């Protein structure tokens, strides 16, 4: 009997060893190949944040982050609809990307050093420069965040905002009480019902969530920006080709805006003799091929979702209910921070 057991043990260990080896062996599959073979892109988004990623009753998604994933799908498949959106909570998002449940996360996620270095993810690019702020009821008569001493704050659990608020109140020697909810909807509902004096999150999200309040006009966003919140898509660490693809998808739409190429004037622009436009359109050089895509990759992006300016105005801009000005997200030529390295 003893012998039997030992033999089995050895056999089992052998099986396990092979399994472990084989599972690590195919681990380094290239994401782009995987996505192309699968036929669609798996994109992690938020559970509903107007302007960034929000589903309507029919399940179709809109927002700047959604458009980012659509742009990726357009670049890879020449079909912006070949993308499957997975709504993720703040807590689930890092595990979802680590485990490969999604290929990319575009979920208004702040690029921080801890996340970049300790969570096994990479942030290829920043598609929205944001900062944390506060929203309060107008009738409180408050003009500045420094008057918030003793306030109760509603926020979302497990976000950088929770930490920033703690830092801000400490450094200004103010007292506060925090109520942190699992879901953004719940924190907004709690703020709306008066559980909290202030709701704190990224400025853009404040404008977005304001729309969900019973009476949006009764609330104001305070001017202070208490943190840097560079938001961007994130991918798994260790696949630099995929990393490049994400980065240049954003830069292509930025470059298009710089050059005045929009989804409406593509035809006209394709006849342009401007060398920069010709490179963007894949008429000169082999930029698409180097990314593992077709020559037309940038045209496909702009044709389906437009350039960065169009994406911004459609989802967040002053004509939308959110009414956010370009501000820091204007092109560098107009005093903003959006700056694309040259395509050449």
């Amino acid at each position, binding site marked *: *009997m003893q012998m039997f057991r030992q033999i089995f043990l050895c056999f089992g260990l052998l099986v396990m060893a092979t399994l472990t080896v084989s599972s*690590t062996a195919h681990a380094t599959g290239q994401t782009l190949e995987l996505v192309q073979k699968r036929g669609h892109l798996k994109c992690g988004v938020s559970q509903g944040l107007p302007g960034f990623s929000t589903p309507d009753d029919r399940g179709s998604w809109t927002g700047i982050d959604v458009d980012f994933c659509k742009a990726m799908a357009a670049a890879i498949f020449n079909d912006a609809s070949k993308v499957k959106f997975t709504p993720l909570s703040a*807590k689930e998002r890092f595990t979802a990307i*680590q485990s490969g449940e999604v290929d990319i996360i575009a979920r208004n996620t702040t690029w921080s050093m801890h996340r970049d270095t300790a969570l096994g993810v990479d942030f290829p690019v920043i598609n929205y420069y944001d900062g944390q702020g506060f929203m309060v009821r107008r009738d409180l008569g408050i003009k500045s965040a420094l008057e918030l001493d003793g306030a109760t704050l509603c926020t979302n*659990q497990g976000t950088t905002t929770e930490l920033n608020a703690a830092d801000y109140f400490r450094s200004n020697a103010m007292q506060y009480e925090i109520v942190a909810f699992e879901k953004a909807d719940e924190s907004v509902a709690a703020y709306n019902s008066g559980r909290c004096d202030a709701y704190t999150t990224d400025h853009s999200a404040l404008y977005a969530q304001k729309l969900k309040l019973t009476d949006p006009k009764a609330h104001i966003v305070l001017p202070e920006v208490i943190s840097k919140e560079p938001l961007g898509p994130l991918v798994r660490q260790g696949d630099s080709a995929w990393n490049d693809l994400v980065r240049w998808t954003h830069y292509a739409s930025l470059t298009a805006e710089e050059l005045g190429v929009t989804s409406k004037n593509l035809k006209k622009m394709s006849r342009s003799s401007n060398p920069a436009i010709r490179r963007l359109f894949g008429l000169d050089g082999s930029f698409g091929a180097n990314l593992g895509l077709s020559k037309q990759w940038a045209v496909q992006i702009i044709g389906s979702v437009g350039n960065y300016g169009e994406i911004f105005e459609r989802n967040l801009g002053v004509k939308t209910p959110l009414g956010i000005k370009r501000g820091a997200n204007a092109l560098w030529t107009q005093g903003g921070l959006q700056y694309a390295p040259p395509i050449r």
Partner: protein
Amino acid sequence: MRSWLNRDALLQAIVLLAVVAGMVWLVGNVQSNLERQNINSGFGFLSERAGFGINQTLIDYTEDDSFGRVVVVGLLNTLLVSVLGIFFATLLGFSLGVARLSRNWLISKIAMVYIEIFRNVPLLLQIMFWYFGVLRNLPSPRQALSIGEAMFVSNRGVVVPWLEAGAGAVWYGVAFAGVLAGGFWLRRRALKMKLNTGQASRVWRPLALLTLALFAVAALLAGVPFTLDVPYLKGFNFRGGLTVIPEFVALLLALSLYTAAFIAEIVRAGINAVDKGQREASAALGLPESLALRLVVIPQALRVIIPPLTSQYLNLTKNSSLAVAIAYPDIVSVLAGTTLSQVGQAVEIIFVTMMIYLSLSLLTSWAMNRYNQRMALVGNAS
């Protein structure tokens, strides 16, 4: 026979191997996944600075404290709501169970309606109903309902005056512990005396004397180290006093009301299980009904009631994890919620969370088994 034994052993060996192989395979996967993606692992994070605030802490806690202390804070919050929930659920459940068997038709039916409503609606829904549905309609702090200008009810919770303990308060704690110990000792002595001589001995008067004496000594040693902290409105909110946050109220309310419905059914079954003759016999002895219930029926019913009651207590403790839905900072919320997303180490954190609940439940099961054994022995002896 011999071959059978071998077959069994072989079967078991195969099962064991399959399980062990499966485990090793899973662990191997986790390790390779984590290593390949350069994700931190280990429990080093427990000593790092947490950096976030928690709105209900039973021990001192600031943002500078470590994640390890966050775990303790969360665990204490879980225990607080569980213990209080168990207390209220038992109280309400026993009353409902007895009411369910009342000869008064109306009372019995009301109890039935209560039970059927509360146990057939999901607990999570009840928690949300109380929190998002009912408590949200309370007035803001400036319009707070006030009871004697000392206690305030608003949508920030209930604020009550509280005794602020000073430096010497520990002496009072010692005195209290002394009273408890003395009480136990007196009771044991009285019981022994009753068994040996049949005479009742005094318990209450010596205990009262002891209490007086011990607290007098404490007062002599430490003076009166307590100050009454009355809440007052300042700025946005009440300062001072003790605040009971609405998340806690909603959770406690829902847990107690829900579990009470189950306890009522257990109590009813337990009382029904007591032989009818027992009731008749106590009636023949001239015991009024309330005494018969207290002295004859319930002690016997308890033997049937205790095991399922314990599992209800365990359920309540586990159900307190639904706190995460309404931002009550229990262990799941602060550990598997905030800490998990700040640190990002899912495996370690979920493991710790599960282990905490597992040890709570194993501890309770162990205590219950001990209790059952004792009850069984008594039964055999009589």
